[in-house]
């Protein structure tokens, strides 16, 4: 009957209808993660904080009203009598214990802090990644010998992990002498085993995955499997960790300055140094400590929140 008539518009109609009722097709891990992060409070707060921080770090030094090291008002503050100068028109955050403009120092300090955080994170990430990939690859594809290599490496990362990170940092600082670089290295080294273990772990998981077995089966060269198959799929936890490390790096750096192993030229403001210096005058002028402290805490919180949000978004078990 009418079955064979006007086939064309039947198809069109059908097409558009099928379009309209959208079928949930698999989106990529990251796009999926990103979608879920957009709806996560933690992620948003974190992102906003970090954005603000990075902005300050970048433009800070340009907009700083005074030289961060200029002791312009040194005759107005009397640490020995507990007399300090708080907020005022000229100095929005008041003066520090040597008559320098806190606001300018704070702004410049942001960049220093970011620098320390990023560099030391990178140190940990890069070295850790190398070690991790090495032992991960060895474990997944190295056969018996590889396994042995892997165990040895992991033993040592174990030991590094077992040592309290500050002790490690302090001793490194002790060996290399004090400098900003030392701080970065010290803080970075502490991160190495974490990254190493992490990458190796997820590589092992990936190594067992079907697609790798498949790749082996069809006889793709090992190096290529690692580089093209395993590694890319193992990265997401590392990225999460990197974000979190930024937070820990900033805090550890502050801790080092508190232990007197911070940047030897305290004239160059860095929040950690500023905090540990201001802490002595906490009773007389709490705000002096408050500014850098708040800076550190908020920033660290920002990175941690974002990292946690990412971790959750990427975790298949916690979906839905």
């Amino acid at each position: 009957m009418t079955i064979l008539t006007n086939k064309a518009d039947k198809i069109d109609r059908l097409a558009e209808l099928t379009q309209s009722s959208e079928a949930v097709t698999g989106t990529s891990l990251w796009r999926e993660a990103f979608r879920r992060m957009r709806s996560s409070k933690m992620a948003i707060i974190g992102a906003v904080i970090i954005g603000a921080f990075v902005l300050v770090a970048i433009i800070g030094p340009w907009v700083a009203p005074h030289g961060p090291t200029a002791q312009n008002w040194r005759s107005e503050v009397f640490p020995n009598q507990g007399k300090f100068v708080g907020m005022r028109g000229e100095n929005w955050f008041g003066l520090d214990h040597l008559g320098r403009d806190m606001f300018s120092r704070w702004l410049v300090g942001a960049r220093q802090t970011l620098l320390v955080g990023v560099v030391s994170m990178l140190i940990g990430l890069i070295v850790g990644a190398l070690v991790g990939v090495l032992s991960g690859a060895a474990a997944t594809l190295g056969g018996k010998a590889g396994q042995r290599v892997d165990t040895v490496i992991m033993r040592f990362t174990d030991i590094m992990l077992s040592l309290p990170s500050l002790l490690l940092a302090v001793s490194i600082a002790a060996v290399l002498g004090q400098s900003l670089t030392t701080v970065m290295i010290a803080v970075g080294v502490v991160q190495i085993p974490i990254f190493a273990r992490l990458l190796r772990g997820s590589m092992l998981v990936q190594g067992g995955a079907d697609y790798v077995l498949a790749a082996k089966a069809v006889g793709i060269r090992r190096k290529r499997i690692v580089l093209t198959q395993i590694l890319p799929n193992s990265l997401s936890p590392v990225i999460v960790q990197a974000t979190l490390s930024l937070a820990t790096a900033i805090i550890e750096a502050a801790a080092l300055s508190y232990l007197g192993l911070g940047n030897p030229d305290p004239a160059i403001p860095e929040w950690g140094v500023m905090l540990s210096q201001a802490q002595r005058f906490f009773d007389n002028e709490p705000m002096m400590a408050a500014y850098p402290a708040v800076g550190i805490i908020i920033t660290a919180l920002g990175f941690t929140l974002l990292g946690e949000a990412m971790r959750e978004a990427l975790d298949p078990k916690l979906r839905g």
Partner: protein
Amino acid sequence: MSLLSVEELSVTFTARGRKDATAVDGVSFAVDQGQVVGLVGESGCGKSVTSLALMGLLPRKGVRIGGRAEFDGQNLLTMSERKLRDMRGSQLAMIFQDPLSSLNPVVPIGIQVTEILERHRGLKGEKARKEAASLLDRVGIPDPARRLKEYPHQLSGGMRQRALIAMAVACAPRLLIADEPTTALDVTIQAQILELLKELVDQEGTALLMITHDLGVVAGLCDEVNVLYAGRAVESAGRRELFAHPTHPYAHGLLGSIPRLDAPRGEPLNPIRGSINDKIAWADGCAFAPRCDHYTMECLTGTPELTEPRTAGHQVRCVNPVLPTAEVPA
């Protein structure tokens, strides 16, 4: 009136940041005392969601449930959490698909059985243990006393499923919902399990709602069959009637796609083309249309009504059903 009567049950998932997805879209069916009713359909047709909705096991948040589900006079869907807890396990019980993951790995079988006896029948200590043993024995687990002390991972797949069944029937529920109870098992075990279920139903007069994609299971077990497609019943009839005269093109297709020994040699199987993903919203017309061999423009004008084109009680949701004439193979 029937023990369980479901009317226009609909379940919609409203996840944050996602489009609402309607899994069940107006399913209606009924189950009587001692009757075995099957819900059949490919995965994703909403049969499991239906069962969870009935048990009230769907999450409170992010889910919209509509319609009615009368269990001897009470609407399960609007029932209070507390009352539902009392009903679950005693009045209605459920058997799940994957026996391993459905058992708590760190709690001995015994406790997992006795806890339900304790909850609903107030049995405690030695009494409960005896009862549990006899339950395991009844579902055909040898040496029950020892098994009670064992952990799930120490049992075989079949054993685990039997254990789950034992828990389900522990309080002689009036309605038993089995969601793909055999899919995770070897064929030989499947048969045993089905056998077990059948005899339980016969002895206790328990009503059984069998949810499966496996027409074989249906053929072996069910009195009534409801074929679901995209969250709606498209055909429901008695087992014989359905197998003899599948009338909805989908049901027809399903049956057509099973290999049969009595088919003449060399005759090709004719599977249903496409997948459940290329469908259209029921509101716009017949969801099956995109995969249907003989749809017409009419198929695309609003939801088709349930009709009884063949015999009374054989309901079909289709504007041009597969009728005897079209049925004869060329």
